[in-house]
């Protein structure tokens, strides 16, 4: 079977977070990412999927795609939910900011773990967070 290069997974339960991590770990390894990058990517997935589950107050979905450039491989991830939204995105990105009494270091951490992060959010409508990571092709 050919390696799957794109897909999606719902985020409705804590078990779905586990599935998201597993899916992306397998996809990133198959794409040829090194172990350091795989760990960073999977950690980011864990943060963002958990945020959907814990903060959005609704269901969500993770979409992913493996990208190719000459000499490079990339992964594009999108986390979309239909929940309460983030009123102040800059504030949410601050180290230590949390509305849940947890560490408040997820979003700022993801920004450092990945090459690119983009947050679109509307209060009462939902949040879409996309991240990308590139590595040297094997």
């Amino acid at each position: 079977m050919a390696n799957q290069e794109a897909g999606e997974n719902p985020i409705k339960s804590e078990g779905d977070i586990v599935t998201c991590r597993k899916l992306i770990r397998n996809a990133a390894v198959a794409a040829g990412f090194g172990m350091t990058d795989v760990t960073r990517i999977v950690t980011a997935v864990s943060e963002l999927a958990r945020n959907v589950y814990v903060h959005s107050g609704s269901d969500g979905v993770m979409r992913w795609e493996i990208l190719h450039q000459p000499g490079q491989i990339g992964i594009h991830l999108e986390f979309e939910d239909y929940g309460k939204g983030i009123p102040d995105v800059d504030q949410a990105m601050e180290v230590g900011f949390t509305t849940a009494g947890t560490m408040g270091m997820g979003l700022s951490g993801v920004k450092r773990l990945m090459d690119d992060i983009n947050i679109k959010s509307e209060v009462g409508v939902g949040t879409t967070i996309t991240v990308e990571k590139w590595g040297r092709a094997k």
Partner: protein
Amino acid sequence: MNHSHSNSKYISNFNSWAEQKRFVNFTDEDAALLQKLHPFAVDYADVFVEKLYEHLQKFPDTKRFLGDEKMLMRLKLAQKAYFMDLTSGDYGEGYFKSRIKVGIAHQRIGLPPRIYMSTYCYYMQLMIPQIYSNPTFDVETANGIFSALHKIINLDQELAISAYIHATDEVISRQTEEILEMSTPVIQIWEGVVAAPIIGMLDSGRTQQFMERLLETIVQTNSPVALIDITGVPQIDTATAQHLIDTINAVKLLGSQVIITGVRPVIAQTLVHLGIDLSGIITRPTMALGLKVALDKLSIKVVDVSKE
């Protein structure tokens, strides 16, 4: 928080059963046809039950479920009620619930689904002549009754099988929980030192259990040092880090100390990226090195007697 449960999709609720009725095309007309059969079913009930149990007693596999004389009497009574309900004409929520109960009861005593299903087959074999040799039914009515009976029995079977699957599913999730518990063992590896190798992610469900067991073992063994080994943890996100820090603080409250071992370079790097500061925590790359620190703390010296 809404934890979705995998079990719920198997056991039907009354709504999904209504859908199931539409699926097999069970209509009010079918209900009416079955009701036509009802007075004859009532007359035939005692003979039917006797014949059925006579058949079941022929096979050692089924006979052992029938029990002693008293038990058999009770089973026959229950069977008779079940049989007469089949043609009662009322297939509402009461009927639905009683069928689910019957399925669960049979699963509970360990009756294989094979026997359950085959008994329905024998049901039909006994009933078909009752329908077609009845002079009050013309062929068209008899065909209609036959079809309606077939449908209701199919619906009953579906409920029974759902109950079986549901029960099996519960066994699986219980076993999963047990495996989960086994996968975070806490063991005393030296007088005064307990060790807990964590395999897999430390998710919320598991942390609570793990923390409780670790604290209990520390108290029971009166251990000043606990080694938590994370060699088998694939990655640490902020939630896992929080769980670890909470655990470490709880251990501190007992007057003991945690050493985190098996911190791989990739994990250390990700923790730095996440901005998590573990500088106040003793960490070692391997469990062996962690044990060395622990023994030093306890002022224990291990000597290699061959070199003495």
